């Protein structure tokens, strides 16, 4: 059997999620043996055309050109996996969705006419069918290895959809909200990081996006009890996964409530 062909593609992003693959220092050479890394520009000059058995897609769609490019990548990829908060939920750059883009461009660039950019930053799934997703800003190395191993063996990867709060209980962490009064999005946030922030005495800021079936309004009430109110409460939902529909809806609900 020939080795599966892997493509790694970048859209608007920080490169951190694809770097996670190069950060697999102990496994990288074994991965390169098991998989034909046919297109991974950050790591290799060899950029071969599709079709690809697996495409890892990092970044969000923010330009007209990228909106076309993702269609072409989808067309030549059997399994398309989005990796990280930009690809799965628009990334921090989706804060532009709440603002006037022309004003943004004028704030950053002296000659706005040179810039070709869409008004919104949108997740990959808003443009093409996505087969699997890895959450996180950035993704977790262990989850990436689980994904690649599962795909190589023709099974679905095990990627739990419960909350960070559950992981925190399993890890035996003392609750940062109860014990320290820290605002924490752990109850509504998707598992995957191993409840990292609470382990460092810090509230979760939701970089894996929503867990399955979260109760966002109830979360807002708990955040209020820690003193996070008004616009600060809205900002708590406007982080690295702000274009996720559930987080976006909660911001809109809070905005309406305050009007």
């Amino acid at each position: 059997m020939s080795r599966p062909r892997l493509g790694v593609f970048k859209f608007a992003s920080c490169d951190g999620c694809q770097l996670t693959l190069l950060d697999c220092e102990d496994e990288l050479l074994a991965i390169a043996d098991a998989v034909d890394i046919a297109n991974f520009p950050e790591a290799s000059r060899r950029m071969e055309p599709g079709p690809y058995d697996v495409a890892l897609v990092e970044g969000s769609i923010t330009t007209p050109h990228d909106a076309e490019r993702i269609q072409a990548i989808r067309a030549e990829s059997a399994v398309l996996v989005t990796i990280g908060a930009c690809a799965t939920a628009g990334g921090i750059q989706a804060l532009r969705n709440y603002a006037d883009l022309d004003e943004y461009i004028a704030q950053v660039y002296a000659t706005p006419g040179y810039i070709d950019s869409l008004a919104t930053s949108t997740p990959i799934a808003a443009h093409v069918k996505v087969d699997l997703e890895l959450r996180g800003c950035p993704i977790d190395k262990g989850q990436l290895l689980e994904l690649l191993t599962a795909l190589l063996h023709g099974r679905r990867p095990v990627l739990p959809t419960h909350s960070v709060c559950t992981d925190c209980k399993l890890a035996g962490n003392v609750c940062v909200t109860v014990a320290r009064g820290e605002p924490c999005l752990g109850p509504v946030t998707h598992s995957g990081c191993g409840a990292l922030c609470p382990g460092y005495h810090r509230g979760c800021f939701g970089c894996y996006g929503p867990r399955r079936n979260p109760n966002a309004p109830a979360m807002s009430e708990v955040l209020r009890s820690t003193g996070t109110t008004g616009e600060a409460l809205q900002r708590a939902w406007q982080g690295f996964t702000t274009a996720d529909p559930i987080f976006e809806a909660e911001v809109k609900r809070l905005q309406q409530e305050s009007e």
Partner: protein
Amino acid sequence: MSERTIKVDYLARVEGEGALHLTWKDGKVDELALSIFEPPRFFEAFLRGREAIEAPDVTARICGICPVAYQMSACAAVEQAFGVELPEPLHQLRRLLYCGEWIESHVLHIAMLHAPDFFGMPDAMTLARSHKDEVVAALAAKKAGNAIVNMLGGREIHPINVKVGGFWRLPRPEEVDALRTELLAARPKLEAVVRWTGTFDFPELQRDQPFMALCPGDVYPFIEGPVRSTVGHCFEAADWRDHVVEEHVERSNALHARLDGGLYQVGPLARFALNFDQLPANLQQLAVDIGAAPPVRNPFRSILVRGIESLYAMDEALRILDTLDPATLRGEPAVSFTPRAGVGHGVSEAPRGVLYHRYEVDDDGLIVDADIVPPTAQNQLAIEADLWALADDLWQLDQETATLRAEQAIRNYDPCISCATHFLTLTKEAR
């Protein structure tokens, strides 16, 4: 043949999306452009109205390869605005975190992004077939750098443990011990990799642009000023904008920076030239032995300087761990403060060169104005100048060799295009 074009539509083994276009007519360069088509993300715009204490976490997302640099420059700027002074032990721990990022980022570049150029190979995975020991040793050294960031930052990419005023939690003694063991095991592997790069064949090129770097005079710099240059500059972060000015050009989504109107260079070669005296004697000697006596004026030899800096970072990390007072680890992880209105400037030495942040903050601790100047935006003109200087040599080479050489010259700077694009300056007209 009097006309010719080198066109690289998508530069490989750099962070981010860029392209090169080089055209000769009648044997002379007609057009030379390093263009950056990485889509802009407008950090400086959406930072407005966010809390200043969010700046370290938000700006980390500009770059997944050097998030610690963004966190360090952001903290320095916000701490200055709030009048926060970091006690020495916490300052040392920030240096320790930065050591990890230098090792991780430098060794990534040395072994995986740059070394393949010296063998005409497409990538490090291919290089590992003929030089497995070296690539495996480099991966182990890189992993040790990541172990520092992981231990102190919580994770390698976008660490979560840095906050304005210090850290969220200080390491536990057993975490410190485990890290020391890992670094000691990786140290000889890293030195072997550095000595290996000393055996490479380096293309000839001599450049003379000014270097600019932090230069405290008593220590090799991570987060200590002032800024100095090889042409006599010496200024504090607060005076950055009096000297560094950026311009917007059509071919690039990144602004081009100039130092008092002229092109200049930041990064390992600049730090090395301005701070060589601060390196320990054994590393000074090793630098000379592998062909990197200061100042290194051939950009193709930058891989050697990254190696020396990686070893410095490894030894400095061990020194900090060895001198860590157990009482520090039992003490407060951060200085408390009350947000207040003000302006703060912060500089630090990202792996690719000095990184400047400025924040104007209101009474509520919200950001009114943000300004970020990343190293690659500063080096863009120097990269192009190197290509101009190489153009006659490239003309003599066959197409494939010339293309490879031009790419290699760009990779000499370890350009981070993601950074360059996301750090554009706010114009005054916007208000």
